[in-house]
């Protein structure tokens, strides 16, 4: 096979305009970077970068605003959906995005996310579920699996004491105000492509003024899981996916028929 000449080469892959050209603080093998990249690609493709206002949360993604090339505000722990509500109600024609981890969204911020969904708040939530508190060093989260060892469940999550993990997407999908609630995973290329399509549909939901949209993304945390990046991807697939099924839990009919 002949090597193509330089003049005929095309750029087929580059940094999205919606990402800033800086190194992130995320650990090697963590899938936050994949999540960031997918959001940026989708906003670029939809031409929304200059209309978007992000709401960062507290946790590993606290500095998300350093990596995205558009306006951001920074919420207190768990309050991103409330803050996003304030932004969106002033600017209904802007795209408002929250990016939240599982401790932030499903523990301290459970009231805010439930009521934002119940109001049908026209925002898009990206929910990173990595089954632990990453930023503070790997404590038990509401999403930690039964028996999973963390720094605050050293003998493994005891469901008699700590209860069972919360399936947030399923729960929020029961609310009338939610128009698009799905779960995807970032553990292999096929699932990453599915995640990107889901993010596209979530933002399409908001562009159409159809109310609350959320994509839960199963993610890895190699540092706190004590696994290599590759082992982490396998652990996610083998342990997390069975408990947190990859599925569409609520898709408004107008979105279900959308071709993207």
């Amino acid at each position: 096979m002949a090597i193509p000449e330089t003049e005929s080469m095309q750029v087929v892959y580059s940094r999205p305009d919606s990402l800033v050209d800086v190194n992130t603080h995320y650990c090697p093998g963590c899938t936050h970077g994949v999540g960031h990249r997918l959001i940026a690609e989708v906003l670029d493709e939809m031409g929304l970068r200059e209309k978007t206002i992000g709401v960062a949360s507290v946790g590993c993604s606290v500095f998300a605003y350093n990596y995205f090339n558009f306006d951001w505000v920074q919420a207190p722990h768990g309050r991103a959906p409330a803050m996003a509500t304030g932004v969106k109600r002033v600017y209904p024609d802007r795209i408002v995005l929250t990016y939240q981890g599982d401790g932030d969204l499903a523990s301290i911020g459970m009231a805010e996310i439930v009521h934002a969904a119940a109001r049908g708040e026209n925002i898009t939530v990206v929910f990173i579920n990595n089954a632990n508190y990453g930023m503070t060093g790997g404590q038990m989260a509401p999403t930690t699996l039964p028996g999973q060892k963390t720094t605050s469940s050293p003998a493994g999550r005891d469901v008699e004491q700590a209860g069972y993990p919360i399936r947030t997407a399923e729960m929020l999908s029961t609310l009338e105000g939610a128009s698009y609630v799905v779960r995807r995973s970032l553990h292999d290329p096929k699932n990453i492509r599915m995640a990107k399509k889901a993010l596209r549909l979530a933002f399409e939901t908001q562009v159409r003024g159809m109310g609350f949209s959320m994509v839960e993304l199963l993610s890895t945390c190699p540092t706190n899981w004590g696994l290599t990046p590759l082992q982490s991807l396998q652990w996610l697939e083998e342990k997390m996916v069975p408990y947190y099924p990859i599925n569409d839990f609520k898709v408004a009919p107008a979105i279900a028929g959308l071709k993207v």
Partner: protein
Amino acid sequence: MTRELMKGNEAVAEAAIRAGLQAYFGYPITPQTELLEWMSRRMPELGRAFVQAESELAAINMVYGAACTGARVMTSSSSPGISLMMEGLSYIAGTEVPMVLVDVMRGGPGLGNIAPAQSDYNQIVHGGGHGDYYPIVLAPSSVQESIDLTVLAFDLAEKYRSIAVVLTDGSLGQMMEPAEMPAMQPLRTQFPDWAVSGCEGRERRILTSIYLDPPAEERTNLRLAARWQQVEANEIRYKEYFLDDADFVVVGYGSTGRVALSAVRAARAEGIKVGLLRPITVNPFPSQILDDLANRVQGMLVVEMSAGQMLEDVRMAVSRRIPVEFFGRLGGVVPFPDEIHNEIRRLVQGPLTTDGHPRDRWLRRMAAITGSPSVN
């Protein structure tokens, strides 16, 4: 202009709307709820944002988000709800975005009751949230003043990129008085150059209260402190009554200041040379006028609906140069003019001392008044 009979809470709500309020977020709590209800009707009919939040936590964070757009935003609550808002207030202060908060104080601590009190002074004036920050706090004593100070609060909040609080109480919020509304201001169309709006045609903007680098956080705190010095230099407001020839001064703010004025007038009628200083800004605190008064009067009486929270600020300004006495009713009990009148007489009769703490002497008197146990 015509004066209308208006309830305090509703007057504050309408005044905020006339001042160009673009978004209101709140949660029901007595004795503030009429304010929320007024907003729920008026804001949508004007095409402006209104959300009844799921909690005060959510309400203050909705305000936080809206404040980051540079819009005129506000929330209102009463003491227990204000306690819940402290997290958001600290973040808002740390992000240096303007907002207006109305606190219609009620009895506490805990669930307390729904009667008027002034025991939020410390958590509002001296900060209930974490970190070094300085809200501007305006304390009206009538429905008309509630209206005027609400309008002023928006201007001051924006001028200093600060939190501005209108500190009222259950009696001011619930009472009806004739008052005049300001004209309706047009909504702003130009937003400040720090605000987020989507980065079309410009560099992106980030609004945050995080400064992970301690020297950067220190610089931020110093900037806040320097800005507060400007507020102290420019914005101290108070009202003097009969102070020119006064030998004794009563100090009281808000509705207690108003009750005290009746007592001062009664004391004047029997020949006592007593005046009243009513702080309008309780933050920044009118320390200088108190300092000046301490050089020419024989004693002061601080009256509050608390166990003496503002008292400490008065004592600091006076620095034990003259005797300061205290009289408080609290837990939702409102002092009568006669009670304060008697306290004025007691002040004049003496003997007075700069020794000890006025709260200790007051507690002993309260034991006699209420039949409650004395501390010693």
